């Protein structure tokens, strides 16, 4: 039987998505359900002098209006769940509804609950808030100026943490260097723009105490954990369901006060409550990404050996510390400073800075793309400084091929790699020398062609739980699967992660189908419901396939091991004599004796005749905790033509060579790369969340923020 691992089969999740019959959170409608909305601050920084909700409370259809005063003692502040060690992290109280002061445009001050969406919207306009505006701090570097507006009273200079990474002796390397290049880089603030805005629906049964929360989450188990903390409801009374989730890109990792408030209102009112953000609200209220101001420098020898890297980074946190925010510009950023070159001496200082912007958290790649960009920018400057070809400089510095681990100065141990081979493959696809000749010719004709090259590694497959604990992550980073075989032999796989576009309902079924020699139609992968899925940590950090997929494989193997024992018993043979062929167990040398997996499944479940002492049933649970991160790598090349009159950049070719290990489903892998490349091009050429000096979001709607379009790519 041909294996499915490696096959570009069509996705199993697609029919429901193609026909409009998938259920996203906002599609959920419950009996007696009411709607809600958040009144959000129009000021980036202001004292709340007075909130008058009397008119709103009396408006038609209004069921309840809550302010900070109503909930302050009922809902704990929004937790920040990543506290990196040795950086003196200061986490200010992040109230679910601001009560004395607002700290970004979008900071919620009141919640309106009403019988219809329209009634909510009308009543929100009647909430009368008297603000005393304050100066705002927006730029993460300038916010550390002693004269800048102070956002939290007890956090001087708005510095939420100061984190260091050191490997080798960077200062000595720079002191001895023949060549030094430096640059100030502004890595802009970005808006993730998952196509589905956030939403939540909560329902509470006062008699059982059971709270059910449907929410747009990449990690429903973390949502349950943190909602329990905020609401004081025990975890076993909270069921979080992340139904169909329409993209996340990091913005649906964070657990938001909004979700706690919707749950609180459902408990208070004894009616289901729904909230769905609109896009303009999403731009203000859902986490952003990046937002670095960086001072970076690289040193080396005149003949092109890179010997050191130093950085000073001001990383904007926004008004509060979001769920994973402190870990992103530190652990996920500075630890990869050695890049694909194994730079021997690195030193970085990262200031996490509170600003009067929307909270910043993980966004596609989270910290690592910022590191790759600064390394590669410096590599180009370095090549230019010594008159070397940028490809030759990179080639000279790449870590040579290795199979069994390579430790770099920051302490990471890369798993395996052949970086030069990826570089050569990309260069071959482009015909780099041919392009350089074409470029020279074009230049003579007054046309400006260019080629950009990036070689990279990325720390993925987050990650070993011991490391998670050591770096202050407030949870584990293992993942889990239950493989359950029904009496008829069909299979359900319940996973702890929560794919939301990445296709693991298909790829994980491919793994199990191969293990059991089964048609994939007999296997279904279920994710997103904490009631049925084992404890897991969600889908982010390029971890789902590497970590949760391994749990699926192990659970399936456990099931198969048990099935083999049962088959041996039924065939009255020693287990050692049982072979697995063509989807069946058979006695070696006696193919006619075969017991198909499905038949064994029935016998396991009816338990009429099992080996002595064996428990009935055929299912297994596996928790997989990886021993290391995984380190995919590659080379990307992009050729462009620049119109020097208008500044327009036309992309001629984009070549991506990425080694992510064996592909379970090549079609899905390629699709992930396509999406990542276009988001990267958007980041490089089009996107930026822009604030004015008063903290007003100038790119406050999809009209203003440039999401890449098909016609632009």
């Amino acid at each position, binding site marked *: 039987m041909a294996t499915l691992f490696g096959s570009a089969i*069509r*996705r199993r*999740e*697609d*029919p*429901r*998505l*193609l*026909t*409009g*019959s*998938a*259920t*996203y959170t*906002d*599609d959920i*409608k419950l009996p007696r359900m009411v709607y809600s909305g958040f009144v959000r601050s129009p000021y980036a920084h202001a004292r709340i002098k007075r909130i008058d909700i009397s008119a709103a409370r009396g408006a038609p259809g209004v069921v309840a209006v809550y302010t900070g005063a109503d909930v302050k003692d009922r809902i704990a502040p929004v937790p920040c769940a990543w506290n990196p060690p040795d950086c003196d992290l200061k986490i200010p109280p992040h109230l679910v509804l601001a009560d004395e002061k607002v700290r970004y445009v979008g900071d919620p001050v009141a919640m309106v609950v009403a019988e219809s*969406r*329209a009634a909510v919207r009308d009543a929100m306009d009647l909430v009368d808030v008297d603000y005393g505006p304050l100066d705002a701090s927006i730029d993460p570097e300038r916010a550390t100026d002693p004269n800048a507006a102070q956002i939290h009273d007890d956090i001087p200079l708005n510095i939420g943490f100061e984190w260091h990474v050191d490997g080798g002796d960077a200062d000595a390397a720079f002191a001895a260097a023949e060549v030094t290049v430096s640059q100030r880089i502004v890595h802009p603030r970005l808006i993730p*723009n*998952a*196509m*589905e*805005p956030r939403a939540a629906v909560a329902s509470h049964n006062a008699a059982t105490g059971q709270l059910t929360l449907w929410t747009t989450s990449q990690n429903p188990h973390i949502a349950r954990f943190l909602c329990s903390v905020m609401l004081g409801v025990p975890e076993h009374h909270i069921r979080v369901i992340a139904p*169909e*989730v*329409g*993209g996340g*890109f990091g913005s649906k990792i964070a657990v938001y006060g909004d979700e706690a408030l919707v749950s609180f209102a459902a408990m208070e009112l004894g009616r289901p409550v729904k909230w*769905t953000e*609109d*896009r*303009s609200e999403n731009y203000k209220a859902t986490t952003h990404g990046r937002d670095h101001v960086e001072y970076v420098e690289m040193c080396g020898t005149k003949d092109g050996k890179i010997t050191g890297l130093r950085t000073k980074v001001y990383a904007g946190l926004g008004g509060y510390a979001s769920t994973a925010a402190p870990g992103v510009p530190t652990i996920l950023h500075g630890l990869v400073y050695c890049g694909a070159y194994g730079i021997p001496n690195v030193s970085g200082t990262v200031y996490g800075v509170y600003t009067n912007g929307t909270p910043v958290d993980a966004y596609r790649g989270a910290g690592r793309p910022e590191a790759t960009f600064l390394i590669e920018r410096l590599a180009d400057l370095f090549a230019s400084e010594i008159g070397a070809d940028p490809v030759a400089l990179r080639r000279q510095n790449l870590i040579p091929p290795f199979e069994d681990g390579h430790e770099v100065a920051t302490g990471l141990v890369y798993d395996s790699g052949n970086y030069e081979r990826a570089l050569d493959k990309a260069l071959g696809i482009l015909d780099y020398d041919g392009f350089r000749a074409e470029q020279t010719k074009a230049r003579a004709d007054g046309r400006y062609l260019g080629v950009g090259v990036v070689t990279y590694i990325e720390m993925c497959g987050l990650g070993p739980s011991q490391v998670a604990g050591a770096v202050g992550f407030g949870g584990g980073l293992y993942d889990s699967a239950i493989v359950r075989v029904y009496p008829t032999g069909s299979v359900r796989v319940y996973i702890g992660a929560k794919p*939301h*576009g*990445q*296709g693991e309902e298909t790829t994980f079924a491919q793994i199990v189908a191969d293990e059991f020699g089964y048609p994939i139609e007999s296997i279904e992968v279920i994710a997103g419901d904490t009631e049925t899925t084992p404890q897991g940590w969600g889908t982010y950090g390029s971890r789902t396939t590497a970590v949760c997929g391994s749990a699926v494989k192990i659970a399936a193997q456990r099931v198969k091991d048990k099935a083999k024992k049962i088959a041996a018993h039924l065939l009255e043979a020693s287990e050692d004599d049982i072979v697995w062929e063509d989807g069946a167990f058979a006695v070696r040398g006696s193919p006619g004796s075969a017991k198909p997996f499905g038949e064994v499944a029935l016998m396991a479940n009816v338990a009429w005749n099992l080996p002595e002492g064996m428990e009935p049933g055929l299912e297994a649970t596996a928790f997989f905790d990886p021993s290391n991160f995984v380190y995919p790598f590659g080379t990307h090349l992009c050729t462009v033509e620049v119109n020097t009159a208008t500044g327009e950049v036309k992309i001629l070719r984009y070549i991506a060579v990425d080694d992510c290990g064996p592909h379970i489903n090549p*079609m*899905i892998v*390629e*699709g*992930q790369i*396509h*999406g*990542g*490349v*276009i*988001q990267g091009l958007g980041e490089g050429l089009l996107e930026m969340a822009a604030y004015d000096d008063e903290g007003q979001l100038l790119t406050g*709607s*999809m*009209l203003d923020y440039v*999401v*890449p*379009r*098909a*016609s632009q*790519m």
Partner: protein
Amino acid sequence: MKRSVTLAINGESHTVQVEPRTLLTQVLRDDLDLTGTHIGCDTSQCGACTVLIDGHAVKSCTVLAVQAEGAAITTIEGIGTAANLHPLQEAFWEHHGLQCGFCTPGMILTAIDLLGSNPDPSDREIRDGLEGNFCRCTGYQNIVASIDAAASTMRAGSGAGA
């Protein structure tokens, strides 16, 4: 003050009571539970709410429900079923033209209109035709490939039928 509106959706007539300010997209989703039409923005940029009105792709967030009276409206629920997919649905499936799926209904309905007026579009014409539909997952590459493949299938189908 609500008023009565009768809408012809996917070949069925529905009469609903709506406030005059109610958008077509809200009636489809909230009153008629046709939740395959998605709302991805509030400024008519994203195209997730695209439906066909008298055969033309229209963002249903730009139309008041009362304006749609008398028109023939087709939503994603009306163009194919899991057992009998429209060639565009089939092509999106075959060519991995979707990831999270949120933009997909709008993409497909826009593509139906596009191929209706241009059965053999170039890559550039497909991309320009998707100007009003955003996707954040796929980078559009496989959406364009899907529409191109569906165009071939549909041309062959119409040729066979002629």
